[in-house]
């Protein structure tokens, strides 16, 4: 009998401890922001949070802000001033002020990686205007759908291959890695669509050093084999939709001179043509345009010493690790890059198109 009651006591004890509930807060006492904006004024960080709140059966966005020496302290002050605790577990998008991005986000990103409060999968974005203004415009106009900012970047929602997708851990990697940098999308508010995508910022070691246009970002995505569903205009003759893409690279390293041969294979579908041009012409023009665009962008990237394509990766087995450290400053500058774009037009839709032998008839 004693044994049984002892067992029961133990059982209750285990049930209590095993739940792992310690200082639990109910979900209705937590605020779960989906977007977070960070800017820096002097030495102080300013943090703005967009919190979806149910008001009368509808979701409304609430914007709260605070400033402080560190981000965690700021969040803490916010929590202290509110009826609920702020939980960053569900932050999906982090907006960083352009000025702060130029100064460097190393500390901010390291803080996220260390504390694990913010998921390392959260997207990093740069905001090219006053962050408060951005949040106000975006949430005022679209108060029905609270997570619009997040959906803007979601692959199965608003994302297009013109937008670079960069997550917290990738930025962190770029801070420490010898051969890998990242492109971060830049957004502003305004226009009839509320959010306007301005291209991408090139981040080197956690600092913004250069900007590239949306079209150039598409090429970067094409290089990383992520450009499917991207639409490309071919001068004024046509526009095509990219169905699939594949990149082949061959690296060479002769006499301290790195060189890289790249072939991007794009499978496209013809969408629009403006006048009767043959398929061959469109193909040729598309390939030339993309190559020129790529060369222009690559020169810009080389000057900024930021390796957002991760080209150094191709030379890992050719350059000793000691010297790989100097990849960006030494070898990357001298890298001879040759890119050719090969286009397959998979089909031309419901309409027939002229090909050169047809037009010969």
């Amino acid at each position: 009998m004693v044994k049984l009651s002892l067992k029961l006591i133990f059982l209750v004890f285990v049930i209590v401890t095993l739940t792992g509930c310690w200082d639990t807060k109910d979900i209705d006492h937590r605020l779960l922001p989906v977007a977070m904006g960070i800017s820096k004024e002097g030495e102080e960080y300013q943090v703005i949070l967009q919190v979806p709140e149910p008001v009368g059966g509808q979701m409304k966005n609430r914007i709260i802000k605070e400033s402080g020496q560190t981000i965690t302290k700021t969040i803490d002050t916010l929590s202290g001033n509110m009826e609920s605790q702020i939980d960053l577990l569900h932050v999906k998008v982090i907006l960083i002020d352009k000025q702060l991005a130029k100064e460097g986000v190393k500390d901010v990103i390291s803080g996220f990686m260390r504390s694990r409060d913010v998921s390392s999968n959260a997207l990093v974005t740069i905001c090219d205007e006053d962050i408060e203004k951005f949040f106000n415009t975006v949430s005022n106009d679209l108060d029905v759908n609270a997570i619009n900012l997040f959906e803007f970047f979601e692959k199965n929602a608003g994302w297009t291959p013109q937008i670079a997708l960069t997550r917290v851990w990738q930025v962190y990697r770029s801070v420490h890695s010898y051969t890998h940098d990242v492109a971060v999308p830049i957004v502003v508010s305004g226009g009839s669509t509320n959010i306007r995508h301005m291209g991408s910022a090139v981040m080197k070691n956690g600092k913004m050093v250069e900007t590239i246009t949306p079209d150039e970002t598409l090429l970067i995505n094409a290089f990383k084999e992520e450009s499917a569903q991207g639409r490309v205009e071919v001068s004024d003759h046509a526009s095509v939709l990219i169905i699939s893409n594949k990149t082949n690279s061959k690296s060479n390293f002769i006499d301290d001179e790195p060189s890289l041969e790249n072939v991007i294979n794009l499978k496209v579908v013809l969408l629009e043509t403006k006048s009767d041009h043959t398929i061959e012409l469109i193909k040729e023009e598309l390939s030339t345009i993309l190559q020129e665009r790529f060369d222009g962008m690559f020169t810009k990237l080389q000057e900024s010493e930021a390796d957002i394509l991760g080209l150094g990766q191709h030379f890992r087995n050719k350059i000793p690790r000691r010297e790989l450290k100097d990849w960006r400053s030494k070898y990357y500058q001298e890298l001879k890059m040759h890119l050719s774009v090969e286009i397959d037009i998979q089909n031309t839709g419901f309409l027939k198109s002229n090909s050169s032998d047809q037009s010969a008839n």
Partner: protein
Amino acid sequence: MNKNLQVILMYFITHVGLIFFMYPTDIIESASRTHWVPIFIGMVFHLVFIWIYMKGLSYFPGKNIIDIYMEKGKGLSLIFLIPIIGYFFLANITTVRAYSEIINIVFLSETPLWATMIPFLFIATYIAAKGINVIFHTAFIVACVFLPLFLFIFILSFQNVDWRYFFPLFDIDYSFISNRSYYKSFFSFAGVFLFLGFIQPYHTYDRKKVFLSAILLLPFFLFSVYVPILTFGQATSATFQFPFVTALDSVYISWLVFDRITMFFLISLLIFIMIFLSLLLWMVCSILVHFVPIVKHSYVLYFLSILIFIICVMLPDWKVVENLFWWNTYFRFYVILVIPFSVLIFGVRSKRKVR
């Protein structure tokens, strides 16, 4: 009675539980490139000593390691077994403390340490008190439930890998030989294997199959280190406390029900560790009971786990835990080198005598 599958599963899951936290950290700390070299060397070492150990044990069918040493006299057995007790005891303390620290770092950041240690130790003690058969049965059930989940998440962890980080392949870095961390990493190799010598009268096993399951562990050893390196690169991985866990955190799959798969991964590993703990406790107790046969097995066990709990609570910080871990390395190498060889030597000798 031949209970191959249970022994193999036990061998497998306890190792898996030990691999994914400290092992990658130690290896990444000890070498700056070509990490496969230290991993392979460790693995070869592992295979050699478990083979010697099992070969030695095979000369004594139906006897466990305590009986083997007892045959040689009480004094000799004391000399051989006391370091094992020390090793198990320290291993117990470091495991309980380190893993509850991991729980705290990764998900229960506001829970005090003692609250995570109690259920951890309590369940392990409870299983151990029920005897070796229950430990094996529990291990079997746990493996059935959690191994598939573990394997699924392990495969998912490859989502962000860039295989080019594998290079350079042959620019071999030998600095790991002089590095402390490398010797600490043997924790994952040498933590478990001794149990094969303790289970003999209750469980027998096929040597070849255990050996095969040890070989099967190779990819897990290899990729526990390489998944973070292939995802982040060496320079970045070296900044992480638990590289594999961080690499797992970067996995993003929108169709998956759970947002952070890391949690599920950790929980399955922690359950494997609980089995490991109960095995450790049971082994220490069986040695102790042999020396002091008046006391009941279960009382020794309760006393021991309370003692472990008190010591664990008293350890002030992570630095001390790491120090303990390092001290245990001496015991560990004693266990790796002396025990298998001595068993083999005794075995060969006793065979000659019979002839």
